[in-house]
């Protein structure tokens, strides 16, 4: 794209930011290079749909940009504009990134304007997810490196101007002064304002040490919150364009149903109806007002074929286990597991089940698109503006360089909710009418067709030596997959793309699994207690050398995709519950038993920190003297190194179980977390608390349901989550500040350990083991009744 085209495509606020940064439109048009935008046109490899068992693909974070001017512009007035491809999803990242730039550049927080996730303005940083934002932007790379490079470039310029070496200069509040002569100083605006740096990111640029921080590392309040609390904040739902129309989609009545015919006459003459749009099996209505569109969508007569017959939910876990062919993967295989098991003093086995769950964001997904001729702009709450730009182009038959995606925050997120699919809905409807169209899904369309978090069946087996220590760990899992993130090339990975005629990424069966070639624990399929040795490299966190982790992915009848801690949560539920079962069997305190098998000092430290903060009483579970009726109390622990390298977390849960009818109340959660240097302690606490409560909801209540034709969990009565007034546990967080370490993710650590911590606490309280999520009163009562 030429600079002029870019400029035309810019929003007034972005232009305003540029201008307030002292960069005039004229200069920009002349190609001064004040803002170099790092497009990647085509050539984007498709990140696979984050299928379970796969690590984060290398291009997941996008190519970024090697040019400082893509990241930071200094205004004539000394203001700083920074550009990021990692977006605010409610996790506090906008504020943390603003702190980062203010810190690295030594300017006050409020002098930094951050522009996020806009394909016309910001570097291509792929997808904001997978707890990858801190690893990507807060270490020696991308945004953080840009801040450090800019500070050094400014110091260099001051050094030249004043004729003194850099080590005699200090930068403070956007002014560089000579330490030996206080009369010599210059502001950033004077040194670099309105001009391009024209330098590459410098890998050797010095990042500030956490010990020097004055802005980063502090509990700076989130910048959006005052606007949200007063009803001023612009969510994607609030985007309004002149002449904008409203669309509603008509989804199939059953999974697999296809359009036979659409009777446009059925809505002819209804007030406000502009157009009925049909493209393959995609059906929608555009009207002048939202209520008119909703009514027309209800009244539109569409003839559909019969759907596919869905597997019976009552036998679904058996169905999963028996699907052939599967895609088989070994995460680890030491090739001696059978022999070790044969020699073991004792074998322990258990099977765990986890249901499909949904993101179920509180507001249904929404997008606004303006498609005119061969150009399109989409306002979207997508996590992936650049990939979406490519797939919107595919869906509309446009050139990617003619599509612009502008992020606006949506409701919730938690992974691939409906944000991408509704972006296609709005784009298709806008293209059909040549006017801007806003689409917000109905609650039912949101819940019936989103990309669910995957169900799992997990078989665990260990061999113990005579002393009760684990000598071999054998893990085998089955999980279903269909679609996922569209990436840059697969719009058919979400429902709208599929209905409009695109196929989901092909399922590639593979049996038998090849031997692993390198160790990756991106899905936490490998338990924390094994060495994780593949070839000569051992990447695990434990001591057990004999290990086998075999993963079977099978085709799913429903759309699937990343849901907060995808696969990592399900696997951790199984590992950490099983570890507790083994500890109980050998009558050992479950904390001591874990520590006996762990080797990673940081994982050990979070386990000890959580136990200490919870006043953990060392003794085997279940607790002595259980009475079999009434309310019983217990505690349980679980831990994880998220994704094998991206955040340490341990949790102690204290619960009460009403043994008469099986209700579980979580009373207290203690979370110890180590995600490296802490950018914003209050933001981190908020993430840990939110992850914990999200985990409680998923553990106790959430399960997608279906009948023989369709999803039946389609509102908040049929898909349950706790009300705000429900029992909220006391939550204590222990933040471990690891100043010397790498910045890791923290958005998904806590949610990962909740289910096992609660299961272990229920066992401690009652002696009953729950191996299937959710822990509904009926299921818990069943386990209580089955106690011998």
């Amino acid at each position, binding site marked *: 794209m030429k600079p002029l085209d870019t400029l035309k495509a810019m929003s007034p606020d972005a232009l305003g930011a540029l201008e307030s940064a002292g960069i005039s439109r004229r200069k920009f048009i002349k190609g001064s290079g004040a803002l170099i935008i790092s497009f990647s046109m085509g050539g984007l490899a498709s990140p696979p749909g984050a299928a379970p068992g796969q690590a984060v693909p290398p291009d997941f974070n996008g190519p970024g940009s090697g040019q400082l001017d893509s990241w930071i512009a200094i205004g004539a007035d000394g203001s700083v504009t920074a550009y990021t491809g990692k977006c605010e999803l409610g996790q506090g990242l906008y504020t943390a990134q603003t702190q980062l730039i203010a810190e690295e550049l030594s300017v006050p927080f409020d002098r930094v304007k951050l522009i996020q996730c806009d394909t016309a303005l910001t570097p291509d940083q792929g997808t904001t997810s997978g707890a990858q934002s801190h690893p990507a932007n807060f270490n020696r790379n991308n945004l953080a490196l840009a801040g450090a490079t800019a500070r050094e470039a400014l110091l260099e310029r001051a050094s030249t101007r004043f004729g003194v070496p850099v080590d005699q200069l200090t930068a403070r509040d956007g002014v560089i002064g000579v330490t030996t002569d206080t009369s010599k100083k210059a502001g950033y605006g004077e040194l670099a304002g309105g001009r391009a740096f024209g330098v590459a990111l410098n890998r050797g640029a010095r990042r500030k040490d956490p010990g020097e921080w004055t802005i980063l590392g502090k509990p700076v309040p989130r910048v959006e919150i005052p606007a949200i609390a007063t009803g001023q904040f612009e969510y994607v739902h609030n985007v309004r364009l002149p002449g904008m129309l409203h669309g509603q989609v008509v989804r199939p009545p059953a999974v697999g149903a296809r359009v036979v015919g659409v009777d446009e006459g059925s809505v002819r003459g209804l007030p406000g109806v502009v157009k009925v749009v049909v493209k393959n099996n995609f059906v929608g209505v555009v009207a002048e*007002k939202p209520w008119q569109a909703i009514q027309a969508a209800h009244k539109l007569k569409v003839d559909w074929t019969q759907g596919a017959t869905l597997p019976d939910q009552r036998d679904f876990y058996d169905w999963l286990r028996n699907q052939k062919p599967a895609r088989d993967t070994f995460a680890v295989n030491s090739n001696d597991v059978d022999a070790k098991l044969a020699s073991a003093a004792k074998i322990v086995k258990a099977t765990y089940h986890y249901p499909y769950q949904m993101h179920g964001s509180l507001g249904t997904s929404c997008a606004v698109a303006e498609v005119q001729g061969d150009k399109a702009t989409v306002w979207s709450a997508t996590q992936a503006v650049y990939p979406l730009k490519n797939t919107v182009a595919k869906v509309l038959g446009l050139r990617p360089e003619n599509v612009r995606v502008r992020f606006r925050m949506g409701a919730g997120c938690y992974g691939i909710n409906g944000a991408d699919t509704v972006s296609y809905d709005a784009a298709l409807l806008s293209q059909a009418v040549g006017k801007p169209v806003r689409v917000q899904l109905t609650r039912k369309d949101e819940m019936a067709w989103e990309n669910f978090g995957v169900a799992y069946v997990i078989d665990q087996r260990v061999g113990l030596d005579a002393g009760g220590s684990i000598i071999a760990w054998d893990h085998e899992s089955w999980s279903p997959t269909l679609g996922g993130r569209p990436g840059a090339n697969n719009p058919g990975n979400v429902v709208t793309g599929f209905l409009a005629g695109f196929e989901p990424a092909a399922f590639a069966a593979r049996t038998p699994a090849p031997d692993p070639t390198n160790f990756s624990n991106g899905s936490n399929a490998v338990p924390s207690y094994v060495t994780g040795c593949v070839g000569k490299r051992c990447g695990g966190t434990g001591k057990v050398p004999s290990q086998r982790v075999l993963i079977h992915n099978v085709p799913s009848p429903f759309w699937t995709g990343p849901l907060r801690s995808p696969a990592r949560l399900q696997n951790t539920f199984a590992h950490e519950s099983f570890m507790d079962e083994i500890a109980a069997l050998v009558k050992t305190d479950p904390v001591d038993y874990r520590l006996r098998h762990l080797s990673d000092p940081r994982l050990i430290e979070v386990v000890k920190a959580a136990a200490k903060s919870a006043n953990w009483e060392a003794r085997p579970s279940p607790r002595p003297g259980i009475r079999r009726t009434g309310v019983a109390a217990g505690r349980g622990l679980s831990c994880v190194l998220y994704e094998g390298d991206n955040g340490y977390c341990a949790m102690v849960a204290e619960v009460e179980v009403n043994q008469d009818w099986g209700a579980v109340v979580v009373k207290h959660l203690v979370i110890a977390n180590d995600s490296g240097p802490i950018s914003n302690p209050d933001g981190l606490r908020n993430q840990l608390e939110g992850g914990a409560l999200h985990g409680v909801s998923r553990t106790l209540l959430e399960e997608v349901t279906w009948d023989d034709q369709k999803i039946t969990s389609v509102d908040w009565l049929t898909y349950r989550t706790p009300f705000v007034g429900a029992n909220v546990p006391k939550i204590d967080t222990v933040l471990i500040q690891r100043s010397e370490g790498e910045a890791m993710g923290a958005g998904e650590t806590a949610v990962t350990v909740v289910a096992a911590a609660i299961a272990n606490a229920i066992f401690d309280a009652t002696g009953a083991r729950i191996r299937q999520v959710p822990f509904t009163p009926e299921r818990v009562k069943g386990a209580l009744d089955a106690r011998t």
Partner: protein
Amino acid sequence: MAVMNLKVNGRTHPVDVDPATPLLYVLSDDLGLRGPKFGCGLGQCGSCAVMVNGRVIRSCVTAVRSMAGSEITTLEGLGTIEKPHPIQKAFIDEQAMQCGFCINGIILTAKVFLDRNPKASDAEIKQAMSGVLCRCGANARIIRAIKRYAEEVKA
């Protein structure tokens, strides 16, 4: 379609709408307000809450025709970024949200309840909040913010 006068946040707005239209759409699309939000369209989550004559209603399931002569107050009507209402300030001070989509219904529900029941116990507050949802798990902070406001109301 019919023209009616809608009194919102102290101002009267003539609107030309189908009288059966749920109030939410009129507020958010005809009047461009950002406080009330579409969450479920079923009255189950509370995102669309507004105050009508001092009570909280779910605007997604309330026809606009029933609003004639009513005083409607939305989240915007309580306070501003510069001068937030004490309950808005409590949520800001406690950083009591993540995505914040639920906050409209939560603030209005809590405010109306506590203004009518200034001596409410913790259990009563929780009971009052048993019809609104948050999906980000900000519940612990939300309850803290509500109690902070409750202390002010009591004082």
